[in-house]
């Protein structure tokens, strides 16, 4: 009874296709935005920003990107780590080669470079499908990491192949480097996350998004309807890599500040982003965010509870963390295989029917 859609008639198609057709949802959305942009910065500490909020936003962007590829287009990919690395190294090269370039351009350019690389590695998807494709994308993952590790030009010939983000500012506010305030980094990432989510939403509700989903649900039928699989798949790879590249770029420049390709962008990164979208919900933008929140917050929370509050030895706590996260993944999947977003949807439907059970 709380959740009403009756009495909420749409008179134009424009209104009908808006993102939050129900008034209550729309207000809630404005409310969340208000909190994110105004309230959170007021209470941001170094720890919350660097251990929780910034990683959450960065991972959410990566999850959005991967969700476009896996959730919307059905092309299983495990190359996320490699593509993030491309974004990060592109950023490093751009930052050091053009010290004057502003950060937004640097990051967008890094995204574009990654998009090109992504489209290139998307080519096999025209022939290879399903898990075979997933394993094939590992080729991209390993090759890119090897390449970035092997060619010293990418890390400006430093001894160990580490890259560090120099300090850069925008409008007089320091954004990268150790002297950046948590609020600046947070708002910078938040801006990207919101903007990209908006773009993702636009792309997925229009013609292109439908062609992706058609390919996902039944590629043959899609082709017979007129969807060119080549453009659909490659555009998905490119857009997805664009997002992932930006995420890698922020990951390196704003979040970590330094990175080394074999450590920071290994295969485990690919898996954890995949986790996020499956737990959050494949083919759901909202799901990308809650998936990322889950995977970032859960370990931090567990750690703080087990070690901080209960005083367990760190190793026991860490092992239990694995057990609990693994167990939760299983429990969520069993309760709702389509992710947290679907769970929220079912809940909504129940709410709509409330107080009647059906």
């Amino acid at each position, binding site marked *: 009874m709380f959740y009403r859609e009756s009495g909420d008639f749409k008179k134009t198609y424009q209104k009908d296709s808006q993102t939050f057709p129900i008034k209550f949802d729309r207000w809630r959305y404005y409310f969340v935005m208000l909190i994110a942009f105004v309230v959170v910065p007021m209470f941001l500490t170094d720890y919350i920003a660097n251990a929780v909020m910034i990683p959450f936003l960065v991972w959410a962007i990566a999850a959005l990107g991967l969700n476009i590829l896996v959730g919307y287009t059905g092309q299983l990919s495990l190359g996320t780590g490699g593509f993030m690395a491309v974004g990060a190294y592109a950023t490093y090269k751009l930052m050091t080669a053009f010290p004057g370039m502003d950060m937004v351009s640097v990051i967008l350019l890094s995204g574009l470079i990654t998009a090109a690389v992504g489209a290139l590695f998307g080519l096999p998807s025209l022939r290879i499908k399903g898990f075979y494709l997933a394993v094939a994308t590992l080729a991209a993952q390993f090759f890119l990491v090897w390449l970035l590790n092997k060619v010293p030009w990418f890390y400006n010939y430093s001894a160990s192949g580490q890259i560090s983000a120099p300090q850069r500012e925008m409008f007089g506010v320091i954004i990268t480097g150790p002297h950046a305030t948590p609020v600046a980094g947070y708002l910078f990432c938040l801006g990207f996350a919101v903007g990209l989510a908006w773009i993702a939403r636009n792309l997925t509700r229009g013609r292109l998004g439908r062609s992706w989903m058609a390919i996902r649900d039944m590629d043959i039928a899609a082709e017979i309807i007129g969807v060119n699989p080549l453009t659909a798949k490659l555009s998905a790879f490119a857009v997805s890599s664009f997002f992932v590249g930006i995420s890698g770029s922020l990951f390196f420049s704003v979040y970590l500040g330094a990175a080394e390709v074999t450590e920071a962008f290994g295969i485990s990164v690919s898996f954890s982003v995949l986790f996020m979208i499956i737990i959050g919900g494949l083919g759901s933008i909202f799901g990308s965010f809650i998936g990322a929140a889950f995977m970032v917050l859960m370990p931090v929370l567990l750690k703080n509870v087990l070690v901080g509050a209960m005083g367990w030895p760190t190793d026991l706590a860490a092992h239990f963390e694995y057990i609990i996260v693994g167990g939760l993944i299983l429990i969520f999947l069993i309760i709702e295989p389509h992710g947290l977003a679907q769970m929220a949807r*079912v809940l909504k*439907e*129940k709410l709509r*029917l409330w107080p009647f059970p*059906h």
Partner: protein
Amino acid sequence: MTTEKAPILAINNIEVIYDHVILVLKGVSLEVHEKGIVALLGANGAGKSTTIKAISNLLGSERGVVTKGTIEFEGKNINTSNPAELVKMGVVQVMEGRHCFEHLTIEENLLVGAYARTDGRRAIQDSLEMVYNYFPRLRERRKSQAGYTSGGEQQMCAIGRALMANPHMILLDEPSMGLAPQLVEEIFEIVKKLNEEQGVTFLLAEQNTAVALRYATYGYIMENGRVVMDGKASDLRENEDVKEFYLGVSDGEKKSFRDVKQYRRRKRWLA
């Protein structure tokens, strides 16, 4: 049919919900007597397939649950028996929409049908021979992967596979779908033959009402998750409403499909 004899299958006021929220069956009861052929009729989405899946307990794999009511087979409650147990008890389902094992050849498909049988290789071989005799087309295509056979061939394969289990009772979900007209007749002839010669009981969901009522002994008509009418097949056949809405005959004569533009039938009862 004598009412004293306990029915072999009795469904008592069941309710089915999919995905926690979608209520599909709203209290369905029906009975099937030993050696009967019972037809389950109704429009699209009436809940025929759901009823059948509730019996064979395949609902779980579609995130559906029976929330109310009981299902009894030979006097035993089978609400929670798993499908494998049911097949052992002799209840086999032919699923709607073919569901062949795509990567297996036709022959392998049929042999898998005999998985739960324990009466030896010979008997299975005999059944295989029987199925091939019913469907000569399958014999021709026995070495092809089922995924590459035509729609009708797959349908035959699915029915043949169920026969391989040598069942007591067969739940047939739309057996005639996609089959050529003379094959439809043949299938029902097979049903009749098995029923008469081997005493197999049938519950079949069918859209081809005319044929179904010709062969069935009893019929249930479902609308919107409820049983709205039931009766002996012969009675149903004569019922005016059934005639008009399910047999396409009104005022004693068949309408041409070309004329439907000017004329639309509308159901008179409310579901």
